């Protein structure tokens, strides 16, 4: 594979020196300025929507879609770091920090989620996962989302401690690299990661249950929460790859993020795209075969009625195109191919979330045994677009800001990787040997 653009070999010292030089300069100031302006515009749009007086709750469909989209992309990114850490996937070493920083998205989604929970119609007397439980859904949903955000930020804080000590000279804050500290750090990251995974899954269950399923009479499809979580993981991996691609191209990280990363990630992306199909197909086929009134209207609402174009686009962008592209070796074993597919999935995820949430919030009343008719498609107005863009820009802005505080590459893991991957003679050639400590 010598002809392929693997990341150039570099030493631990070079990586540290490089990170020191980059610290504080990462993230284009112009880009940050633009994102900050868009964030402010979005915030003003949101305030003006609130000030505009009482609305039907359907007014917030696009905001709910923005929340679900961010929870399925930015907040799903740390899962890439945890999963590859647990499975000892060394290919992902250079993108683990890039993935962990995605947790910063929680600072936007948490208040947005809390706000949206108070826009929902009264939960009493209609199906809900809370069964009139005291405090549900507002209190419990808010706690879970805050917990997800807090855990994600804790992972980022602890994982970047050794790197901050090296690059910013903050060793005096308690990190001196003792063997006990390393043991606690590595074990702690696995425990926190596992906890993040559990909370992530439950947050997705809560988001889709309370902000979508419970709004549509007769919709009690048990596959939707896993579907939401798994397509969230797909979106998280896609966002990580897109970010890695951008940092490689514009952030000068091409020495760190090589072909191995995209090659390894593309297989995972392909697997997740197949899972997307599997779960979508299970939902579609069971409802189609059932043909009860509630199922027919659900299919009308989400797949073959007013949102059919979005369903087709989402299906193509999350499954058909990724499959058609990623089955080819030359695309998988390349840098641009997986990034391109990640871009398709990223926008596919956006369309999918708009389809689910806008359609659910457009239903006139959540009370009843089944949907009586599929309401017409609800198009976004300027305010919806501004709020959506503002929310996404806010996450982008916070991401770039964080890059100024912590190195985009996890230096200590990178250095561990350098120690554990060596070239050794094998018969008449040299091969890579990967050591895996127990």
């Amino acid at each position: 594979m010598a002809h392929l653009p693997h990341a150039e070999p570099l030493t631990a010292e070079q990586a540290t020196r490089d990170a020191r030089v980059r610290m504080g300069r990462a993230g284009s100031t112009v880009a940050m300025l633009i994102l900050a302006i868009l964030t402010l515009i979005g915030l003003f749009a949101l305030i003006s929507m609130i000030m505009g007086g009482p609305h039907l709750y359907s007014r917030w469909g696009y905001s709910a879609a923005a929340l679900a989209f961010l929870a399925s992309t930015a907040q799903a990114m740390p899962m890439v770091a945890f999963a590859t850490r647990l499975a000892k996937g060394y290919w992902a070493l250079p993108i683990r920090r890039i993935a962990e920083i995605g947790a910063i998205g929680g600072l936007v989604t948490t208040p947005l989620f809390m706000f949206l929970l108070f826009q929902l119609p009264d939960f009493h007397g209609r199906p809900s996962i809370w069964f009139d439980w005291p405090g549900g859904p507002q209190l419990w949903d808010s706690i879970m989302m805050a917990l997800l955000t807090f855990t994600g930020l804790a992972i980022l804080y602890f994982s970047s401690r050794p790197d901050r000590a090296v690059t910013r000279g903050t060793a005096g804050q308690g990190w001196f690299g003792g063997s006990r500290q390393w043991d606690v750090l590595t074990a702690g990251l696995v425990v926190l990661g596992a906890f993040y995974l559990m909370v992530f899954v439950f947050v997705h269950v809560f988001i889709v249950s309370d902000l979508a399923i419970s709004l549509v009479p007769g919709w009690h499809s048990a596959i939707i929460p896993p579907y939401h979580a798994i397509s969230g993981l797909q979106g998280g991996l896609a966002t990580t790859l897109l970010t890695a691609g951008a940092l490689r191209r514009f952030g000068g990280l091409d020495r760190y993020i090589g072909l191995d990363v995209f090659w390894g990630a593309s297989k995972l992306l392909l697997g997740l795209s197949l899972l997307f199909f599997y779960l979508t197909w299970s939902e579609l086929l069971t409802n189609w075969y059932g043909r009860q009134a509630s199922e027919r209207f659900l299919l009308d609402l989400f797949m073959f009625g007013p949102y059919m174009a979005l369903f087709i686009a989402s299906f193509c962008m999350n499954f058909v195109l990724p499959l058609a592209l990623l089955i080819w070796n030359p695309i998988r074993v390349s840098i641009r191919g997986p990034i391109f597919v990640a871009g398709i999935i990223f926008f596919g995820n956006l369309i999918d979330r708009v389809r689910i949430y806008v359609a659910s919030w457009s239903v006139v009343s959540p009370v009843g045994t089944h949907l009586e008719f599929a309401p017409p498609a609800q198009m976004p107005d300027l305010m919806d677009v501004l709020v959506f863009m503002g929310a996404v820009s806010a996450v982008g802005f916070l991401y770039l800001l964080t890059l100024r505080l912590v190195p985009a590459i996890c230096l200590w893991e990178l250095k561990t990787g350098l120690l554990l991957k060596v070239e050794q003679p094998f018969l008449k050639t040299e091969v890579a040997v990967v050591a895996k400590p127990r």
Partner: protein
Amino acid sequence: MQEWRELSSPKINDDLLKFPLHTPMWFWVAAAGLGTVIGAGTISFAIMIGGGLQFLGYNNQAQWAVLITNFVFWIGISHAGVMISAILRLTQAEWRRPVTRGAEILTVFSLATAMLMPILHSGRPWRTLYWEFPFDFSRAIWPDVRSALVWDPSAIFTYLLSSVMFVYVALIPDLSVARDRSLGVMHAIYAAAAMGFQGTKRQWRLQAIAGILLSALILPVFVSVHSIVSWDFAMALVPGWHSTVFPPYFVIGAVHSGVSAVATLMAILRWIFHLEDYITDDHFDSLGRLLVVVSTTWLFFFGMDFYYGIFSRDEMEIGIWNLRIFEPPYNVLFPLFLLTAYLIPVPLWLFRNVRRSVKWMFWTSICVNVGMWMERYILIVPPLSNKQAFPFSWVTVYQPQPIEWLLVAFTFAIVSTGILVFSKIFPIIPLFDIKEGQTLRRVVQVGRRTVPGVVRD
């Protein structure tokens, strides 16, 4: 990384071909014991064909019961082979090497056994022919392609054929070794089966490519089989069955019971064939870790099925869950199922010492499969037994009859006999895979420590 035991090629040949080339006394005792159970099962089968399904505990409503539970259970176990072999091969997990063939063989015999169950359940097995195949042209009898009677056999046959091919392709190099070390009739059989494999560069290349391609191609089949089995239930409008989550829930449940069965099988193989050098504590550790992930995912899907069942606030759905959890005899089975399928084994697997203990893994994995059998029973029988509007449906509780328990034992005996006979003829641990693993193993010096490593290129 697995603990490294350096094994020479002749030692590997001797150890792993010992049982196929020499017959110990216990083999005949085991074969006789299993044969007795199979004989008893066959007689029961004959009685059922003669006298009809009256010997089973079926009533007006519950007509899918133990036999269908057996069917779903064995289809579930059959998911072990592909889970272990294909996925671990594609992900280059080193610990797969001694485990793969046993898992694949478990797949083949479990599938064959599973297929017997609906045939028995039909009561008139010969009639299944024209339900499945369009052979009676003169009477214009055509199978209905929308029926589960066509989906199921198609999916299962495809999976069975792919699994047999999968086993066979991986077996060819080992057959050639057995051919070179045997005499007489066995030599002739091995020679024919090895198809002239001499270990040339081209043959190895083709063998490796075929293995990878089959691994990738069998995965969709693996997922589709249990999904299709789940749709046998989910496509019906029976409350408690008509759920969108059934396909992934069945598949992950199948993987849970299948991987547990592999752990059980590995422990048995290690004990009876003294394979301590090949099936190490590390292998059980890895299986244990995998099981923690798989079982927790399964529990999540179970939770979704339960929660969104009662979420609808539909009277029938709630009635069925009420029956499953609170009404006798299911109120005993339900907590037992949860305890054995998850609450006992999984917390234990969190401890490294348990995962690395063959005895603990053996008993906990058996515990899982006892639980998973009950899970299928609870999933199938109560929705049919739920009291409905018409008085004729207010029937007594379904109770499995002795003949049904005998048929449960019969299925275990068939699978055990299949594996025993296979391992008598062929090496149950792939020789070439173990040798390849030995060749690819390396050590890396990191500071003062030596870390086991593997060639990756």
